[in-house]
């Protein structure tokens, strides 16, 4: 093993001038069983870095709800709108029919009242004749 080389690389490593490949060489060197005793002190550093890379994010991310929430809100809104228009229209037609019926009933009642009034008129005409009786009666009384 070229210990010289490793030492040189270490020096470069601490000056932060090593390339990725050179760092991999160091990583590999420190991951083996036998490490020169005077370099042993650096071992935790490299083992730690490779260990740290093994940590995983295991939590589940709840992605669905928010997205679907909006989708269903719009579906519900459309449904409410359609129902509103449909039943609203029906209600309006119903109202119109009612109004027509009321107008018809009004006309009919008016006709009935007119008929009544006409007949009343005829009644008073007949009653006017009674006046003649009264006049005749007076004449008779006066003559006696």
């Amino acid at each position: 093993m070229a210990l010289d080389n490793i030492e040189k690389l270490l020096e470069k490593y601490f000056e932060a001038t090593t390339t990725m490949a050179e760092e991999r060489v160091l990583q590999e060197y420190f991951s083996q069983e036998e490490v020169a005793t005077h370099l042993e002190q650096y071992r935790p550093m490299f083992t730690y870095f490779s260990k740290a890379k093994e940590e995983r994010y295991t939590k589940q991310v709840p992605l669905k709800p928010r997205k679907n929430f909006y989708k269903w809100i719009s579906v519900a809104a459309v449904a409410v709108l359609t129902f509103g228009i449909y039943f609203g229209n029906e209600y309006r037609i119903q109202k119109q029919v009612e109004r027509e019926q009321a107008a018809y009933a009004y006309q009919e009642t008016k006709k009935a009242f007119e008929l009544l009034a006409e007949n009343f008129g005829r009644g008073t005409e007949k009653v006017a004749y009674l006046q003649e009786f009264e006049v005749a009666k007076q004449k008779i009384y006066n003559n006696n």
Partner: protein
Amino acid sequence: MKQAEFLNVVMPFKDKLYRLAKRLLVSREEAEDATQEILLKLWSKNESMAEYKNVEAFAMTMTKNFCLDRLKSKQAGNLKLVHSNYTDENVSLQRQIEAEDSLSWMERIMEHLPEQQKMVLQLRDVEHYEFEEICELLDMKPTTVRVTLSRARKAVREELIKKHSYGIG
């Protein structure tokens, strides 16, 4: 974009987002929350996602900004006290159980680095990003990245040497 497509795009780098968040926020729960937040934000933008040429870089930058914001707001509020209390406890507990474990020692060294150094170290030595990518992600100049990386590595080395010689002596 359908959910399945989205997951296909996101799957390869969601662990990277989580690890970066954890590097910055330390606590596992906080990092999980942050990752979820970022993924949901991405999902809400999924219509325009095709326009981004590099979704991964975009997501990493989002994560970085989100975590830094979290840290800032934590420092401003009382949360920081609570949080540092929590980690302190944790560390002392860990110290008892795994005092000899060099990995947890490394973890602790990493925790005490400044944020910039944490991020550069995370991106380069853990995730193996190229320098150009790191520049883009962190919005830093290439020379600054190198300097920061070098400082971070040296800081770690110093702590390790301290610990090592302490172990021997």
